[in-house]
């Protein structure tokens, strides 16, 4: 385990109110979302990765070891090649926007040059803000400057601690597309702490579900969103996320057909092209179950499958049912009473009626 290349983390941390005890092997590219309720230790995990919090264990990324308590080794924060975006923008109030962005850049070895700076500034669209003072920026602009500042040093690892949490809904919509741009443009691994399903669905490639400082589930986004652990952890917002390919269009009715895990789905056409890959999100509360295929219904999509598992949710009358439909797992929120009435149990064949599918472009 100790000499495998990659991004290996093993941490033990004890605090008065909670503890962390986890072991993770994360991918060296894309966005890893650390997801979980507040108090689950998400921020502490991020702070340990940055060296802002002392912990036992080891952290190794690529060829660098930042923590190895067995060898009494702990690289101080300022020597770790990280970028860190805090929940609030935390810009230096005594410096201009430009000097804030140059702060980190001035302190890295010159070999990097200012390529990172130009890339960061244009990726976040803040060229026009450079001459401004911090005090004149809006909340969303501040956060974009803070992200650019963290990126300018071209870190080995970018850590983001709920960067949208301090913003209102409108500002969040303003910043989210910039984060999606980062996701597409950057190769460095990012660890993104969030408790918002929306951000998870849009940004994550890999998900770590944290519960009381322990790993509840982890794996690629599409896998984790099908897991019982995540479905139980998020309750109402449970649903699967998957990628699908556009295979047909009904231009008269403005619908598009997606091929998705061996089955087909009709969705609203938002100007898709055939052959395009899209990310879809299907909420469990938008899926209902029937024993026979229903023809006299307004619902377009009927997928047949076999019940894999039934779990009760926080509310005792509600259950989440996981149904295998060819190579896919679908999830449905139903009442326990309906399950009893229809005599559904693991192994029963059912039809899933999908009321709506959200496309995330």
């Amino acid at each position, binding site marked *: 385990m100790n000499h495998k290349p990659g991004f290996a983390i093993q941490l033990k941390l004890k605090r008065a109110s909670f503890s962390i005890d986890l072991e993770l092997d994360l991918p060296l590219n894309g966005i890893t979302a650390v997801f979980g309720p507040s108090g689950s230790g998400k921020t502490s995990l991020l702070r340990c990765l*940055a060296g802002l919090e002392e912990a036992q264990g080891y952290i190794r990324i690529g060829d660098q070891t930042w923590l190895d308590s067995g060898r009494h080794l702990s690289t101080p924060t*300022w020597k770790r090649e990280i970028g860190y975006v805090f929940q609030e923008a935390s810009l*230096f*109030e005594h410096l201009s926007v430009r000097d804030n962005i140059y702060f980190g850049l001035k302190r890295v070895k010159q070999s990097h040059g200012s390529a990172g700076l130009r890339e960061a500034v244009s990726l976040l669209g803040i060229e026009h803000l450079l001459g401004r003072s911090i005090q004149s920026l809006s909340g969303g602009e501040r956060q974009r400057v803070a992200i650019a500042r963290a990126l300018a040093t071209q870190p080995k690892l970018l850590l983001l601690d709920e960067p949208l949490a301090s913003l209102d809904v409108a500002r969040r919509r303003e910043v989210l597309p910039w984060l999606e741009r980062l996701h597409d443009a950057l190769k460095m691994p990012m660890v993104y702490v969030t408790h918002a399903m929306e951000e998870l669905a849009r940004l994550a490639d890999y998900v770590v579900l944290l519960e009381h400082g322990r790993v509840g589930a982890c794996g690629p986004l599409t896998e984790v969103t099908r897991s019982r652990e995540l479905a139980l952890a998020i309750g109402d917002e449970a649903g699967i996320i998957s990628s699908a390919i556009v295979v047909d269009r009904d231009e008269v009715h403005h619908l598009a057909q997606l091929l998705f895990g061996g089955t087909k789905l009709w969705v609203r056409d938002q100007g898709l092209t055939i052959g395009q890959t899209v990310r879809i999100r299907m909420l469990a509360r938008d899926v209902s179950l029937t024993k026979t295929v229903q023809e006299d219904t307004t619902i377009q999509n009927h997928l047949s499958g076999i019940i894999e598992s039934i779990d009760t949710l926080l509310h005792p009358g509600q259950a989440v049912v996981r149904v295998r439909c060819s190579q896919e797992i679908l999830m449905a929120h139903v009442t326990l009473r309906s399950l009893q009435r229809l005599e559904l149990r693991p192994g029963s064949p059912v039809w899933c009626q999908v009321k709506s599918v959200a496309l995330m472009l």
Partner: protein
Amino acid sequence: MNQLSDAWPAIALTLKLASLSSFLLLIIATPLAWWLSQTKSLWRKPIGALITLPLVLPPTVLGFYILVLLGPKGWVGQLTQSLGIGVWSFSFTGLLIGSLVFSLPFAVQPIQYAFEAIGKRPLEVAATLRASPIDTFFSVALPLAKPGLLTATVLSFAHTIGEFGVVLMIGGNIPGQTRVVSTQIFGYVESMAYVEAHLLSAGMLAFSFLVLLALGQLKSRSDKVLT
């Protein structure tokens, strides 16, 4: 009236003492205040209390102890004698040392509060942007604590000008060497030179008022910058 000519050396000496001690205090108090604002050591409280002592002790008590320490039989006095410097009691150096001790809380406290007001976050941000702890101190903590540093300088300057007890105990009121404005006024009153005492006192009053006014002005300006 011709006695007022003695006042000029006293005024010059006072200004020299005040500028030198507020300058030195800034150098001594800033690291001390930084340590007090950052440390989790058990020594924090006792050392904080020790620095604050001059605020509550009668200046004569403080002056007495410093005099004993600096005198021919005190630890410091024996050290300075063995180094061939002589004795610092009843000299300008002794006066300066007394002023430094006496005004220390006035310099340390505003700076310490300013450092504490910055909070942990900007320092953590600097660390994530590759700034070493010393670099962070100079490029983040000091600039953000500027209002506190200004207040500390003005307060220790004004407080040194206003001291009397310590000066009298350590300096001994020697004209041209250790006689400052406050002891000069005392001298005038003792020799019943009320006109001169009036003039010098009024000068002190006006000066102190102006200092406090300037301090208020500085404060409101820096508040505006920071919000």
